[in-house]
């Protein structure tokens, strides 16, 4: 019960202090909207909207979650308010889950902004909503834990943003969203299969266009394993670097 009270209040505090602030709300809407508009203006056909939707959704989640974690973790660490959390009786696992749940929710909401826009242009009957929701949740969790891994590996907010880009941009080009993995140079292909976005994007393709290449179960399992791995590494890094 005590952990639940602490967990809920950490989440609530992050929501009020960070996620529900106007700049972040506008980022959450404008970013996916801008991507969507850009692709739509380029293609001007419903088929292409459908084609780019998985990519825009995946990018919205990835950029939204990793950017927020850099603020909620790195900034609090810098201002020493994170120490207050570390000095509380809440276990590190619950503490990190409370700190990341806000970003996961933020990522999920981000993902549905392009879906709402797309609904005006494409029929929804072909979309498998169960897989879509499941995909969004799994991508949001993995991306958030990637953001957590980045946030606990640096000391400054700007370092977190720079380090994030080191992961984000290669992932966007290697995950098969815009360039099919089969068309990538051979030496780059193995990298495609170790990044979470490949599996997340494939899930979204399956849900929206029914043209994913990886088995649903494998994608979910890989995302789950990567999430656990990133979370464990982040926890170890906190213990090593912040509880010196």
């Amino acid at each position, binding site marked *: 019960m005590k952990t639940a009270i*602490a967990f809920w209040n950490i989440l609530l*505090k992050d929501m009020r202090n960070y996620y529900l602030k106007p700049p972040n709300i506008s980022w959450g809407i404008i970013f996916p909207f801008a991507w969507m508009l850009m692709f739509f203006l380029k293609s001007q056909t419903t088929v292409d909207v459908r084609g780019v939707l998985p990519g825009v959704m995946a990018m919205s989640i990835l950029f939204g979650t990793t950017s927020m974690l850099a603020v909620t973790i790195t900034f609090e660490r810098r201002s020493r308010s994170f120490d207050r959390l570390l000095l*509380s*009786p*809440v276990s590190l696992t619950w503490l990190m889950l409370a700190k990341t749940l806000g970003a996961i929710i933020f990522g999920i909401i981000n993902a549905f902004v392009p879906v709402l826009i797309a609904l005006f242009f494409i029929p929804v009957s072909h979309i498998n909503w169960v897989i879509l929701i499941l995909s969004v949740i799994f991508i949001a969790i993995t991306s958030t834990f990637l953001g957590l891994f980045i946030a606990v590996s640096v000391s400054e907010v700007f370092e977190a943003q720079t380090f994030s880009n080191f992961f984000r941009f290669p992932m966007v080009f290697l995950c098969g969203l815009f360039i099919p993995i089969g068309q990538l140079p051979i030496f780059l292909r193995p990298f495609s299969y170790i990044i979470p976005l490949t599996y997340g994007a494939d899930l979204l393709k399956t849900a929206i266009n029914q043209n994913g290449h990886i088995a649903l179960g494998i994608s979910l399992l890989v995302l789950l394993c990567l999430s656990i791995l990133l979370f464990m590494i982040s926890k170890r890094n906190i213990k090593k670097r912040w509880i010196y």
Partner: protein
Amino acid sequence: MEQHILRVENLSKKFNDFLAVNSLNFSVIKNEIFGFLGPNGAGKTTTINMLTGLARPTSGSIFINDKDYTANIKKAQEIIGIVPDESNLYEEMDGLENLCFCASLYGIKKAERIHRAKKLLQQFNLTTAGNKPYKSYSKGMKRKLTLAAGIIHEPGILFLDEPTTGIDVASARQIRALIKSLNEAGTTIFMTTHYIEEAERLCHRIAFIVNGQIIKIGKIDELMEDAQKDKIIQFSFDGIVQLNQFENNFNHQFSHCKLTYIQDSVFQIHSAIPLDLMPLISFFDSHGLKVTEARIIKPSLEEVFVKITGIERDVMKKEKEGRKK
């Protein structure tokens, strides 16, 4: 019988090859204010970090209420309160929200945390500031609210790291009064400071820590005991006095005393045995010296600290000035 709420055995902390804290042994008695006095870099904050869970000891043991928490200090965090040397509350939140949030970390229910937060705001004279953002607070107010946040879960032992460093004199006085009243209400306090006067005024027992080692530990009276063995009387005279006017005769007549020049018309007489004032005054009178004032000088804790640790008075003073800036 004295109950030891905190006991530390052979506690050490090493950073690569640097031994920051070297085999500390001490205990804190229930309901006392225990002070850790030492210059910057002595190992005070590292010790407090190990005791509260922000640092892992390299070796040694930490017992709280006779239970060994060395390997898992997290389990003890419910019964300890921490007020760090720098405020670590949330700038965007107001005073009441900050206190309520801190209470929630200890699993306190909503109605109870609001009740406790309002009570503390009143006790710390922050009621009107309670609904203002923390970032608008002065340094003194921030420190007071941080102190309130440290006790909102009513801890058994409160750790204060340099509680009055960097704040103005009036706020420091208020903080000291609050610390005293908290202790009187039953809170055991472990505090670090490099202000000798603060330690002297607040603490029941003090440990002198230098270069990561405890040099001396005890009640203030016990620490002063050695220094008080030396009796000192300071004489002030009317007009400028030449030492050579009477030095030889003085040494001959009062061989157990040592004469020390302070300034033109002021001298001190040190003696290992109790001094009788009348023969001294008669002596000065016979040499044509008119005594205007004679007073007993009691050694200060600062002098005891300097004597025991070998750290120059100037070092502590410079640190004090540096911190004030």
